[in-house]
């Protein structure tokens, strides 16, 4: 899922600036699960902004609402009236949510309340780590289900580099070396021969390097006019 974390309140206050009538929009999907921008966080942020603006002698009207998914038009339609009443929307969705609001409500000004961090996993309570780089051409079959693109600091396809030490990456003792993980897993399963192949340069055109991406499924499209 998409993992995000909230911006600091001071930064959010700066983004809101002079707006008097603010709508905080939470999202009920990924950022709810990672405790960054769900209904609870939206209510807390709204309340914090109300209190701090009051303390500063210029109380703002700050309301909050949370939709099931900010990245789908049908859910955004449900908050159209509230959005139009506000001078500013503070989105607690991921970067996709912010953009969906901007696109769906072209007359409204929207600012981000989160930093969208990565595609990852809640490793344990309160700890999230990255798993996928959305490169558009999955190679997890070659690496025992551990992604070197997302999890090796250098995205090596023929790792490990010389910076692997006692299971961690040279960049930080808290970062596991992806290639150590890959080696251990393939070795444990008797599949080390997979690692002896020299992997050719990756075609990055399916990743962000190929420009903004798009998938069209003709079988799923709704045609406006038949025949």
């Amino acid at each position, binding site marked *: 899922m998409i993992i995000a974390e909230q911006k600091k309140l001071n930064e959010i206050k700066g983004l809101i600036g002079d707006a008097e009538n603010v709508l905080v929009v939470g999202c009920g999907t990924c950022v709810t699960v990672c405790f960054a921008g769900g209904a609870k966080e939206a209510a807390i942020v709204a309340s914090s902004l109300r209190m701090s603006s009051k303390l500063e002698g210029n109380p703002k009207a700050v309301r909050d609402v949370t939709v099931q998914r900010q990245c789908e038009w049908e859910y955004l339609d449900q908050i159209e009236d509230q959005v139009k009443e506000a001078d500013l929307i503070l989105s607690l969705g991921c970067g996709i949510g912010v953009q969906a609001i901007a696109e769906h409500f072209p007359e409204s000004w929207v600012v981000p309340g989160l930093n969208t961090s990565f595609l990852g996993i809640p490793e344990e309570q309160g700890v999230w780590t990255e798993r996928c780089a959305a490169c558009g051409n999955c190679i997890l079959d070659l690496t025992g289900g551990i992604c070197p693109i997302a999890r090796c*600091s*250098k*995205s*090596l*396809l*023929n*790792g*490990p*580099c*010389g*910076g*692997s*030490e*006692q*299971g961690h990456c*040279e*960049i*930080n003792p808290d970062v596991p*070396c992806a*290639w*150590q993980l890959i*080696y*251990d897993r393939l*070795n444990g399963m008797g599949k*080390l021969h997979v*690692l*002896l192949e*020299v*992997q*050719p*340069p*990756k075609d*990055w055109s399916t990743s962000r390097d190929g420009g903004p991406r798009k998938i069209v499924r003709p079988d799923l499209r709704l045609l406006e006019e038949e025949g």
Partner: protein
Amino acid sequence: MTAEIHSNGYLAGSTLERVLRAGHFAVTGELGPPQSSDGQVIREKAALLRGYCDAVNITDNQTAIVRMSSIGAGTIVVQEGLEPVIQMTCRDRNRLAIQSDLMGAYAIGMRNLLCLTGDHQRFGNHPGAKNVFDIDSLQMVRMVSEMRDDCIFQCGDKFKGPEPRFFIGAAAAPFADPIDFRPYRLAKKVAAGANFIQTQLVYDIPAFKEYMAKVRDLGLHEKTFILAGVGPLKSPGMARYMKNNVPGILVPDEIIDRMTAAGGAWAGKSKDELTPEDKRARANAWKEAGIQICIDLVQEMREIEGVSGVHIMAIEWEEAVKPIVEGADLFPRPQIKQVEVTS
């Protein structure tokens, strides 16, 4: 060698290749470009190394600190009559930039290349930079081999004119983790086309002998030239730092003890108790011991089957190379006539 030898008998015809193919024990050095545009620094360092190395590696933004480019500094090295080994990392350039820079380097007269992954930018002075890692070091080795042997770019297009013909090297870290995989990773580099290998600094000879036994079992020493990395220590502190802080470097206690013993006359005194003369004398005693240890390491490397030479890394201490090469009885270097390689 795995790759096809060119009609004149050489892949690239560099001095380094010719020294190795003639069966001499090769010596390469290292020259770190300055953090400025000062070409004079390169000339001064080149003067210290000339005659004592068959070729010198010119580092490429080593430790991710911005320096004069390897090819820029290498051009001055060529002018100074020294043969460079251009280092090229995957961190700063994509496949377009690597191929284009290497064609330029070859046109200027460079003939040796060391393909490296590159230190992560987190360690350097631009930690906020975006890294590239479009290809990795193995893929670079294969790409450059194919440029030379098949006259094609990475995309498969044919060259429109002479191709760059490099003597292609790669690095090996014998003691980095996972240590059991290291000989196989070397095998992959050889399979990708590495003509020579320069290893990370080695201080632990017994451990290196074990590694080399595995390398020989895989027959790799017959397919590539292995140059063992050695380097003079400057102080016991530097030895301990390497042991504890640098991934993939083993420093046996015996070597740390030898370094410590060299400063024995000043042992037990705090910084404040030592006069500047004392400190200078101690530093010199340490350096002398560091050079002697390095000489001993080189001598031991010469006895290991499958080691074809040494790569002396005396970074910012190029003066140490002369006494090491002389002390290890590797001076004078073999005089090899330059050959022209034609396509």
